[in-house]
Structure formats: structure tokens, C-alpha cells
């Protein structure tokens, strides 16, 4: 029986990798229609596998749960790869941003189904005002060139507090208007509004996380290397502690502190998970293969040389950090609505090493690697290994954590560059550039001089 399970699990993992490869391949097609057809097909195949047909399902609840976890882990790890793999900033805070996104989104929908629109109103208005505030303060800071980072940070912080306060006031004022519509049978209590609110909640949670990371990253990114890593680890621990005390120190009784937040509506479906994963994949790839992406990588390679090339290093670090955190926030929001229960224990900094390890496993600066490693990790570790070990006895979950550092050590000793190195597949491959002008034909340089100099 064990062997049958083992074989089917291995088969599933292989099928999954083939699926990912196919998805990336089809996304990499030139024609738009091919992409669309491919994406719809990729969505449909899994959707079909999850739908019971005549009492038979290829993906049971356990499998689809793993799938959702893999999607969220991909988003988090993808963001971390942008921050660490592509921009070279060693961040241990990604898990904290993941948690922020999860709790923020969960709070919005939790309150909504509870007949309370304040979550959506306050968070939505706050995020919008926060964005406006950042733009406004940014213009001010740009006018006063040479302002010390600490002063900039103070201004942004004051702005954020102001924006938050205004949002709370407006949200509380508007809530009574919406409350009657939210009651049982009200026009906003149905399925469609709920789905819309869920979508908004995920987006708002992502943007909120991004804004928070902006505020945090602005001063901390000036530290560089290990010191930045320690400060971000600190962020993760601060977030964890605040989660543990969300009902006493923070004014969120519904989060229930260390006891965990129960009863989050489980809105995550394959459609939403797939959609947001797709968005993350596309944004990531388009970013990396743009001028900004090259600037981000230049900062990783050599900050001094990047400066000498006219690149605003601080700005590019912040950009990578904010986008990376945005991905984490989106992932967290999706995760919260899959699992339906948030406990601070899921966001301890120890678990926060997982995305870091995934990124290194997959290869730093390899998007394909991160994606495959995330899926492989979840299905192998959470799926296969957990089931096999659970048959060993009470120490099983512990054994999992004994074996996995050993595997990690072996990997680091044998292949420190990660399993995939910097190989990319399909869509993630660097776009091939085709010249319109002939090769050197219309070159502005006198070919003679180049020839004399170039060829001895």
C-alpha cells in the first residue's frame, strides 16, 4: 500500500513539473491567442481534475490544498527571489510581509461576512490615501534634494499615521450607510458581492503590504548586507509578536491573538489562486526583462559600478523590496482564504526560512527555479514526506524537521548554486532580440576605425 502511495505521489510530482513546464511554454508563445488559449487550457485541466465527475476526483481535498499552498508559496518565494536573488538584498522579513497580507485580507472579508463593512472601507480608503500620501511626500522630498533618510522616513511615517487616522474616521462614518445592505438577504450579502470583496481584499492586502514595506525599507535598506538581513528578521519577529497580541495591543479583537483567527471565509478557489499566481509570474518576468530589471540586477552585481552608470541605487533597492513584498502580501491573502484559520504560529520566523531555502534550492536569480522549487517543496515535504512519516509513530513530524536540514546541508555542500542554477524555461527565458537594422550596417561608427581597433 505504501508503494502504491509512493508511486502515485511521485507520479503527481512529475506531472506537476510537466504542467509547470507546459504553462511556461504556452505563455512564451508569440501570438496572443495562443497564450490565451493556453492559459485557459492550463486553468481548465486542473479545474477539471478538481471537479468530481461521477464520484471520481483526480485531485482530492488534500491535493488541492497542497496546490493552493504551492501557489501562495510561489508568490512569496518569487517576491523573495526578486529581493534577494535579483537585487541582492538578503531579506529575512518576507514571511512577515506574508503574514501581514494574510491578516489584512482576512480581516476585511471576515468583517464583511459578519455584516461589518469597516474592514473594507478603512483598509481600502487607508491604502488609497497611503498611496496618495507616498506620492505627495515623494514630490516634497524630491523638491528638497539631499534630505537625510531619517527625515524622509519621519515625514512618510507622519503621513501614514495621518492617512490611517483619516481612513478610520471616514470608514466609521460610512459604515452605517452600508451596514443595512450587508444584512442577511441584503443586496451586498450575496455571492457576487462577496467574490468582489474577496478580490478587493486580496488587492488591498497586497498594496497595504507594499506600502508597509516601503515605509520599513526606506531607512533599513541603507544598511546593506547582513545588517539589512538582521533588521528584516527583526521585522518578521515584530510582526509575529504583534499577531500574538492582536487582540490586546492591537485593536483587533476578531484576530484573537495567539489563539488564532477562526472563521475566515474560504473563498480561495483554483480560479483565484491561478489568476494571482499568473499575475505574479507575468509581472515578475516583465519587470526582470525591462530596463528597470537590468538596473535592479546591476545593483546586485556591483553597487558602486551601478552608481557610476547613473543608477539611483537606493530607489531601485526600494522598488525591488516593495514589489517583492507586494507578492508576499498577495500570497498571504490567498493563503488566508484557503486555510480559513490564521494562527501566529504559521508566521514564526523559523518558518520564514522556508521561502529563503526554496529560493536558494531553485537557484538565486532563476524564476523557473523558484516556481518549480515552490511546487516541489510543498508537494514533497508537505505531501509525500508528511504522509510517509506519519506512519512511523509519534515522533514523525519531528523527523521531518530532522531530515530536511540534513537534505539542506547535503545540497549546500554538494551544489551551493541551487538545483537549477540560472536555467530558465519558456516564458521566463530571456526574450530573443531580433535586429531591424542590419548588423552594423547602419552603425553610426565608421566601420574602418572599429575594424582597425577591433581586429588585430
Amino acid at each position: 500500500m505504501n508503494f502504491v502511495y509512493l508511486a502515485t505521489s511521485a507520479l503527481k510530482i512529475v506531472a506537476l513539473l510537466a504542467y509547470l513546464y507546459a504553462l511556461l511554454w504556452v505563455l512564451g508563445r508569440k501570438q496572443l491567442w495562443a497564450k490565451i488559449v493556453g492559459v485557459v487550457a492550463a486553468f481548465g485541466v486542473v479545474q477539471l481534475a478538481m471537479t468530481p465527475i461521477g464520484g471520481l476526483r483526480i485531485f482530492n481535498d488534500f491535493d488541492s490544498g497542497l496546490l493552493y499552498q504551492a501557489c501562495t508559496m510561489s508568490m512569496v518565494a518569487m517576491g523573495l527571489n526578486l529581493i534577494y536573488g535579483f537585487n541582492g538584498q538578503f531579506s529575512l522579513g518576507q514571511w512577515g510581509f506574508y503574514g501581514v497580507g494574510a491578516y489584512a485580507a482576512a480581516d476585511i472579508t471576515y468583517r464583511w461576512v459578519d455584516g461589518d463593512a469597516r474592514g473594507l472601507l478603512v483598509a481600502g480608503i487607508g491604502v488609497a490615501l497611503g498611496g496618495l500620501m507616498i506620492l505627495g511626500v515623494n514630490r516634497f522630498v524630491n523638491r528638497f534634494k539631499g534630505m537625510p533618510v531619517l527625515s524622509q522616513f519621519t515625514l512618510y511615517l507622519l503621513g501614514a499615521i495621518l492617512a490611517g487616522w483619516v481612513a478610520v474616521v471616514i470608514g466609521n462614518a460610512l459604515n452605517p450607510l452600508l451596514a443595512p445592505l450587508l444584512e442577511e438577504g441584503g443586496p451586498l450579502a450575496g455571492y457576487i458581492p462577496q467574490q468582489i470583496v474577496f478580490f478587493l481584499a486580496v488587492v488591498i492586502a497586497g498594496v497595504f503590504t507594499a506600502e508597509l514595506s516601503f515605509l520599513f525599507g526606506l531607512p533599513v535598506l541603507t544598511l546593506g548586507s547582513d545588517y539589512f538581513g538582521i533588521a528584516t528578521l527583526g521585522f518578521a519577529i515584530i510582526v509575529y509578536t504583534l499577531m500574538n497580541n492582536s487582540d490586546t495591543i492591537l485593536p483587533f479583537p476578531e484576530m484573537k491573538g495567539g489563539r488564532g483567527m477562526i472563521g475566515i471565509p474560504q473563498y480561495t478557489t483554483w480560479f483565484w489562486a491561478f489568476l494571482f499566481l499568473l499575475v505574479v509570474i507575468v509581472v515578475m518576468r516583465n519587470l526582470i526583462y525591462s530596463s528597470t530589471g537590468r538596473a535592479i540586477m546591476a545593483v546586485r552585481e556591483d553597487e558602486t559600478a551601478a552608481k557610476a552608470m547613473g543608477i539611483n541605487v537606493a530607489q531601485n533597492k526600494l522598488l525591488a523590496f516593495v514589489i517583492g513584498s507586494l507578492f508576499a502580501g498577495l500570497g498571504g491573502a490567498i493563503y488566508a482564504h484557503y486555510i480559513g484559520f490564521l494562527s501566529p504560529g504559521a508566521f514564526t520566523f523559523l518558518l520564514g526560512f522556508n521561502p529563503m531555502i526554496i529560493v536558494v534550492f531553485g537557484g538565486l536569480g532563476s524564476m523557473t527555479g523558484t516556481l518549480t522549487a515552490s511546487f516541489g517543496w510543498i508537494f514533497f515535504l508537505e505531501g509525500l514526506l508528511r504522509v510517509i512519516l506519519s506512519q512511523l509513530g509519534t515522533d514523525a513530524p519531528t523527523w521531518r524537521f530532522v531530515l530536511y536540514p540534513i537534505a539542506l546541508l547535503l545540497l549546500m555542500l554538494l551544489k551551493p548554486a541551487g538545483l537549477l542554477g540560472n536555467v530558465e524555461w519558456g516564458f521566463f527565458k530571456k526574450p530573443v532580440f531580433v535586429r531591424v537594422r542590419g548588423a552594423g550596417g547602419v552603425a553610426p561608427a565608421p566601420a574602418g576605425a572599429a575594424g582597425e581597433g577591433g581586429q588585430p
Partner: protein
Amino acid sequence: MNASSSAPAAVPVLEIRRLTKVFGGLRAVGDFNLEVQKGALDGLIGPNGAGKTTVFNMISGLYAPTEGAILLNGEPTVGLEPYEITNMGVGRTFQNIRLFQNLTVLDNVRIAYHPHAGYSLADGLTRNGRFSANEHELTERAQDFLAIFGLDRVQNELAKNLPYGEQRRVEIARALASNPKLLLLDEPAAGMNPNEISRLMEYIHFIRDRFSLTILLIEHQMRLVMNICERLTVMDFGQVIARGTPREIQDNPQVIEAYLGRGAIGRAGVIRKDI
């Protein structure tokens, strides 16, 4: 006092006044003055540790001077961020080549276009028409640049995989792609054989004429310096000890002393004591 009082045509591309840099207790550069006129090809020479690279680092904004002023075309730059100075038209290379090692040669050059890429982050994320047009344009320009330097065939190689001489050329091409008016070359001939140096000299002449540049270079290879530089400034222990044409410098007793004479012997003595 201010450069703007003189006629605009006479404003030098680079003017340095009383520049001083102190590291801890060490006076790396003291009271350094320099003027480089438009279109010039000048050299900054001196023994190791004389403070030449420190001057370059202050011009490009990597070090903040302890005292003094640096004017680019009459505009003060002290206090600006390095990237702002670069965007004012200063390109540079480094003594120990600082390429983006794990990026391709083409990307190394394309990075220099980033400040004027012509499209925004949003354009890049949505891959709209403006992105495609500008990305295409800048890629072709980068390839043309590489072609000038005979590097178009290695454009998709990682920079770290190139031989030393080609890495030097990539670095110069990259600096030129940032569209500088003033190009600072820090020991461009370091580690080159005589054959390569001859070729480098042709290059330097060629790029100055082709891109109507002003060039200031640091070099130890006397053959290169004496052959191509129009004016030389000699530094020792952070001070200017001589200025003039290469011919004048060759016969300057102070310079000979700095390189070979008492100073050199004295320093050798210090080194021996340390060991």
C-alpha cells in the same frame, strides 16, 4: 570667485579647486587644483598611493570631499549623489574592472541607458508600444556600440567569461553608453601587453574624436601617457608636484625624484621596516 564671471566659452569642462580628502588622520588628497578644457585628453599620473583614484572617486561622487569644490561645466557637484553626477555627463571606468559580472555584455551596456531609457516601469510591466519601441532602439544602439569595439560577437556572453582585454573594452563601451561629456579612465592599460596598449591608444584617440569627449585618465604606462596625453598633472602624497606637457614633465626633476629619487627610496625603506 565663481566660474560664471568668466566668458561661457572659457568655462572648463572640469574645474577642481582646493580639493582635500582626509581619511581618518590620513590626508589622501590635499589642496588639489585642476582644470580640464573641452576636448582635452589629459593625464593624471603619480606613484602608487598618490591619491589619483581618490580624486576620481570625488569627481564621480563616490567619496565626499573633506573640502573644496568640483565644477562640471561651471556647475558645482559636491554634495550630489553619484548617479546625479553621472547623469550630468561624467562617465568612468575603474582601476580593477567593475563589470556586472553575471550579466551579459549587451546588458552591461544597456544598463548605462537606464537613466534615459525612454519608458517607465509601467510601460515595462505592460509591454506596451512605447516599451517595445524604446527597448528596441536602445538595444540596437547598444549593439552598435559593441560593434564599434569589436564586441558584437560576444554580446550574449556573461561579462565574467570574457578575457581581460575584452572586459576592459566592455567597461569603456559601457561608460561611453552613458553619454558622458567627460570620461574618466582609471588605469585603462593595467595588465595589458604592449600590443594591446598600442590598440588601446588608438581606441582612446578614436573615441575622443568620435564622441567629441573630454578625457582625463590615470595611468602608469608611461608609453601610453607620453604618447597620447596633451597635458599631464603629477601627484605625489596627495599634492600636485608638477603640471605641463609630457615633454616638460619628462624633464622635471621633482617628478623624477617622486618616481625614482629620494621619495621612492624612503618609501622602500618604510616597507622593509614593516616586514
